[in-house]
């Protein structure tokens, strides 16, 4: 293996490590890294010496920025949808770029590609610099880039950014409900991935003096995708192993087509291995001292924490809510009951900012909320909802899951960057987050199971974990959708005292529940929904004796 081969492999590794950020760390299926490599390579060739004649460093920098911007633009819309749409968008981009290179031979040199003089000189007259970029210089440059990227990725994974990434990859919908800005994070991740792809392309074209469409074809995109899938989630050595495989690939298969077959077979093999690896994957369990008794407190001290007025909502023309009023007070547990399909969960979605109502307003702690909002914004305003279905981050310990909540609720500016630079403020923030997590775990009686595999939790503990995550966001209003579902009698008793404790600390709790014994034991006020309307609202005894409630539940009297 010559120095040129080594340098080329290292530049390829830069692209693979960049892609790993999207695929391994953020769980995004990105199938177009080859397109970003192409933009970096072709851009450098077109702008630099032999093309538009810009200084080499400037041309490469411009090409890298262009690749990053392109990544951001591609993610612009698709990042708001399910992750799979990013696969579609990037796969289409891979083909668009490849076919564009072939379609304009006058600009891009056709199938032969663009040829530039090699080795290139990095010249700066003002500094009196004339550096010949020999293969050895490339090895050093690309090697340093790889080491830097690996170190940054590893540090990123241990801090607040790692929490965001874990939430993105293991449960994007849950992440959004806890206040993680999913779409913005996906865009940032894809921008970084694309920029590193561009850097890889720029480095390679400077090294070889050549960029041809077939070297940056969709096949390269798929090969890089395979290379990063090899290591599974968040293993930095995965891409290294993958790129090593890609480097020996030409010796196994001599034509482009044969390489395609081998790539496809590797992809199949990786898929099989991935399932096997995922099966016995141990959950990294952080050792944690027992949580001290720390109080959970609401953000604001206001008697009325949430006021919804005249809420109306519909799905596909079917009216789900009609003129619903609801007031949640600090220190109270308020139950929302009603037959199946009466609109309870719909109301929760409206209050949590997950569904835009057709009519009505929502005030949080006296401030009217904008109609078009998002769960993230509502979490920051102080309202959080737990899902009806149990949703866990399957590979994260309870502590880490609660940390995601804490991270979602308080998002200090540039926390990821500060953590990367290890500023003193990032350490204070980390200590504060740890206290929040401890308090939430203590308040939900989960200290003893805080470091176990989430799959080992009982159903009741899983339901309590959802409450703990919501509490950790620091929201003053908790919207709990059937938290007792699947709980044993003992666990229900625990939940009862947890809810009393949370309300006792000044939070407002809205409890959607079918178990009337639990409701009567904890709720001071009950609102009854039927067919999208409030049919009763008052103390438990008043509601129980209301004839309309009895009709709704037991049918019309004979």
């Amino acid at each position, binding site marked *: 293996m010559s120095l040129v081969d080594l340098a080329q492999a290292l530049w390829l590794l830069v692209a693979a490590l960049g892609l790993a950020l999207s695929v391994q760390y953020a769980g995004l*299926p990105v199938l177009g890294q080859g397109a970003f490599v192409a933009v970096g390579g072709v851009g450098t060739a077109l702008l630099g010496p032999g093309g538009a004649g810009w200084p080499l460093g400037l041309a490469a920098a411009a090409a890298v920025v262009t690749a990053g911007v392109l990544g951001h633009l591609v993610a612009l819309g*698709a990042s708001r949808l399910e992750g799979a749409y990013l696969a579609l968008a990037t796969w*289409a981009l891979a083909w668009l770029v490849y*076919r564009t290179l072939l*379609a304009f031979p006058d600009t891009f040199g056709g199938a032969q590609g663009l040829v530039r003089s090699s080795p290139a000189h990095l010249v700066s007259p003002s500094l009196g610099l004339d550096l010949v970029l020999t293969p050895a210089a490339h090895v050093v440059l690309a090697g340093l880039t790889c080491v830097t990227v690996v170190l940054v990725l590893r540090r990123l994974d241990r801090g607040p950014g790692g929490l965001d990434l874990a939430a993105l990859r293991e449960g994007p919908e849950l992440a959004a409900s806890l206040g993680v800005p999913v779409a913005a994070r996906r865009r940032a991740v894809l921008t970084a991935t694309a920029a590193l792809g561009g850097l890889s392309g720029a480095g390679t074209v400077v090294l070889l003096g050549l960029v041809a469409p077939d070297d940056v074809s969709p096949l390269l995109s798929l090969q890089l995708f395979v290379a990063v899938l090899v290591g599974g989630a968040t293993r930095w050595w995965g891409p290294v192993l993958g790129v090593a495989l890609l480097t020996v690939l030409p010796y196994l298969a001599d034509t482009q087509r044969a390489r395609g077959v081998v790539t*496809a077979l590797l*992809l*199949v093999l990786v898929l099989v291995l991935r*399932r096997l690896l995922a099966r016995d994957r141990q959950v990294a369990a952080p050792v944690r001292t027992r949580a001290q008794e720390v109080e959970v407190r609401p953000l604001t001290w206001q008697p009325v924490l949430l006021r919804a007025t005249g809420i109306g909502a519909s799905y596909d023309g079917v009216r789900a809510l009609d003129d619903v009023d609801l007031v949640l007070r600090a220190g109270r547990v308020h139950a929302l009951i009603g037959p199946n399909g009466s609109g309870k969960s719909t109301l929760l979605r409206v209050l949590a900012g997950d569904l835009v109502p057709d009519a009505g307003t929502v005030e949080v702690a006296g401030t009217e909320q904008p109609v078009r909002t998002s769960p993230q914004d509502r979490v920051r305003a102080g309202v959080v909802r737990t899902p009806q279905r149990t949703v866990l981050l399957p590979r994260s310990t309870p502590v880490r899951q609660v940390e995601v909540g804490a991270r979602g609720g308080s998002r200090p500016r540039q926390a990821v960057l500060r953590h990367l630079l290890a500023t003193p403020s990032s350490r204070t923030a980390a200590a504060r987050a740890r206290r929040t997590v401890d308090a939430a775990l203590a308040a939900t009686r989960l200290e003893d199971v805080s470091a176990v595999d989430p799959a080992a939790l009982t159903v009741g503990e899983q339901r309590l974990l959802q409450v703990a995550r919501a509490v950790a966001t620091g929201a003053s209003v908790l919207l709990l959708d059937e938290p007792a579902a699947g709980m044993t009698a003992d666990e229900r008793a625990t939940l009862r005292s947890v809810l009393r404790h949370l309300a006792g600390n000044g939070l407002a709790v809205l409890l959607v529940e079918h178990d009337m014994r639990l409701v009567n034991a904890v709720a001071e006020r009950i609102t009854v929904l039927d067919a999208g309307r409030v049919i009763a609202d008052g103390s438990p005894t008043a509601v129980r004796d209301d004839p309309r409630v009895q009709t709704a539940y037991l049918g019309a009297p004979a």
Partner: protein
Amino acid sequence: MLLQAVVTGLAGGVVLGLVALGFTLVAGTLRVLHLAHGDVVVAAVFTGILVVLGRTPVATALSPNHAALFALLVLAAGALLSAAVGWLAVRPHLPDRGRDADVLGWVAGLVAAGLLLREVLALLLPQEAYAVPDPLRLDSLLGSDGVLGLPFGGTLAARVPAVLLIGLLVGLLAERVLVRSRFGKALRAVADDPDAAFLCGVPSRRVVSLAFLAAGLLAGIAGLLYTGDPGRSVGVDDGVLLGLGAVAAALLGGLGSLRGALAGGLAVGVLQALAVQVRPQYGELAPLLLLVVLLAVRPAGLRRA
């Protein structure tokens, strides 16, 4: 000139529409974006070519028997390949017993399937692209010389209106069947809630296979209409571009609507034909660009309700 381009575009678009119909069917039922669907279309066509015409086909007209065999082979290969891709590449990654769908898994599975179909065909075939005689002999249906005159000048290959007619009939029929039949209802039940559908006695797994089978059958028909255009040869890599064009069509029609997919196909076909008028190589770039821009700019408006 313009009329000619539009009609030719509509005929190309109806093929895209049929492919888009299959894509929509799978996306609507399983929430899976079928990234290998275009490759299934082209692989089905090449199955017919390899069996009936051999590795070095000559573009002479097929005898009626050979034409019928070719058509049957393409339809069967489309259905079977699609079902195999669904079974091997997608099914292991679908939601199952409380486990969420493994998105990375099925994306990787489908790109692997598409790549494998493409590259294995390329290894079997000595050429990159083949001019194939029209198996359906559509040009002999209207006018003996295979060319129709158009008002305001210009001519049209006689197969163009025939392709348009057949494609529209098949597409509309498929749409009606999928909306009205028990199978269609089962599909929608599985789409809404696979677990609930299973509890109600809908055989979810069989429905999944049937969705891929139906999509594959439509892919086979699309493949038959795609081949035989005298102005174009069929290439191994056409599948990806056809597939991505169909995805653009499905998104344009509002992903989830079968009728929308068909209409979207016609729109993309016309766009493609007009782009070719500007510069020939824009023909294949236009749908790709449309898809990338659609996904970047209007994803929310295209999301299925």
